[in-house]
């Protein structure tokens, strides 16, 4: 369980997160939706212990989030995860050396699933292949929490589809808490259980995806649109 308690993150006068209180329950798949600059990435980094709140606190399974949080939390960042001069297998071995929960067997399985060549250099990979490699590296870990920050950014629809299939096949549903911050709502809708809307650093709406579908007959995209004034979405 991840708890954000009155969390504010300030950069000078600008508030990236503004008094956010929310609880992510264990074993559920969440989508954090919102326009650019709404605070999605900051929220993810705060939960990953890579950014510290100016006010309030974040706890993961009762422990305050900090750099040690990484031992039981896998984080897919939008940039900086890969070393361009490394081969895919070197990246895998490096991650294996850093995280005791990294499973080489799962990585091998994902390598085949993602159709990646272990001997290829990261610098020679297309954006889509890099996206798949990043997912391979985080899904090969057996953590309680999985944070995916913009996993579809810059990827074409075919690759997005592969990534969603990868999530469906390799996430431990019911056990792992998965939080995905994204713009690409349509692709992930089938795997989302809950969605929250972040706007100017505040949570403005929260829903259970199935409930919205059954009670209001809305898709998540329609629900998102109905919660924004026209023209606010980027």
């Amino acid at each position, binding site marked *: 369980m991840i708890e954000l308690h009155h969390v504010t993150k300030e*950069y000078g006068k600008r508030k990236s997160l503004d008094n956010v209180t929310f609880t992510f329950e264990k074993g559920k798949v969440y989508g954090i939706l919102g326009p650019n600059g709404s605070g999605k990435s900051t929220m993810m980094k705060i939960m990953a212990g890579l950014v510290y709140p100016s006010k309030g606190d974040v706890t993961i399974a009762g422990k305050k989030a900090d750099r040690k949080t990484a031992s039981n939390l896998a984080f897919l960042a939008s940039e900086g995860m890969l070393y361009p001069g490394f081969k895919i297998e070197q990246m895998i071995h*490096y991650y*294996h050396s*850093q995280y005791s929960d990294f499973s080489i067997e799962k990585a091998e399985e994902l390598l085949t699933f993602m159709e990646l060549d272990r001997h290829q250099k990261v610098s020679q990979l297309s954006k889509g292949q890099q996206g798949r490699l990043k997912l391979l590296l985080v899904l090969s870990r057996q953590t309680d929490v999985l944070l995916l920050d913009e996993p579809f950014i810059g990827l074409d629809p075919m690759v997005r589809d592969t990534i969603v299939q990868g999530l469906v096949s390799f996430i431990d549903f019911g056990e792992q808490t998965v939080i995905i911050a994204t713009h690409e709502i349509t692709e992930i809708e089938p795997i989302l259980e809950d969605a929250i809307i972040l706007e100017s650093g505040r949570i403005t709406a929260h829903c259970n995806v199935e409930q919205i579908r059954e009670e209001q007959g809305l898709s998540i995209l329609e629900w998102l649109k109905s919660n924004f004034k026209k023209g606010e979405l980027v």
Partner: protein
Amino acid sequence: MFRGLLKKDFLLVKTYLWVWLAAIILLYAAGSVFASYKGEFYLVFPFFILLYMGHMVLLPIAACILLKAEEKGQYWLHGTAGGKKLLSSKLISAFLVMIASLILTNLLMAFSLFISRSSGFSIIEQGKFPFIEGLLLKGLMLNGGIVIGALYFTIWGLFLWALYHSLNQYPMLKKIRWIIIAAAYFITNTIIGRMTTWDVVQSFFNQWTIRFSPSASNTIMFEGFGFTLSDGAIQVWPVLLSIIGLLLLFMAAGWLLDRKVEV
């Protein structure tokens, strides 16, 4: 885990190392062929002086290359290794680069001395180099001095790098970060430099000295490091205090990386 970090850092700097070693060999070969052709082989020795001095900056540059590789996204902070471990790995990998380069330089230097002696160049006096006596000791002292100097600059560099990135979260200070880190370095060193000239501090330093050569009568001051070799004796306190200071600086860099550098 630490072995994995070392392996990763070595892979990051490996290509630069091979290019640098190849450049030394090529420059030396070209220089020595030209000097031999002119019949003045001793001209290679100024090249060595430059090369040895260059090792003072080689270590900070190697560390800088390794840190630069992490700056985009700072994802290296998402791991179970703390700041001190992360920086230790960078320091050791950069240190290996410098040691490899120093070993090659020493081998080329020894080779050049051998050629000079067998060819009877004019700087040889009565079949001997004027400074051949105690060459090993002098070589060790030269190498030791370079290593100490390079470590001093690199640890300061690691601290200032961490300080620079920890100021990222303060937009008001972001534009003047370079001024802040330059001030941090110069003010600290000016204060330490001034303090070491005080009589009370000098008399404290002179309480513990080690005599290493009865014939030596020179005084050497290493700026920022602040130890004195005087009349063949070395002051121990400044050396100890400098080592403690550098350790504290390294710990502070690790703490800043853990607590203040944000992604």
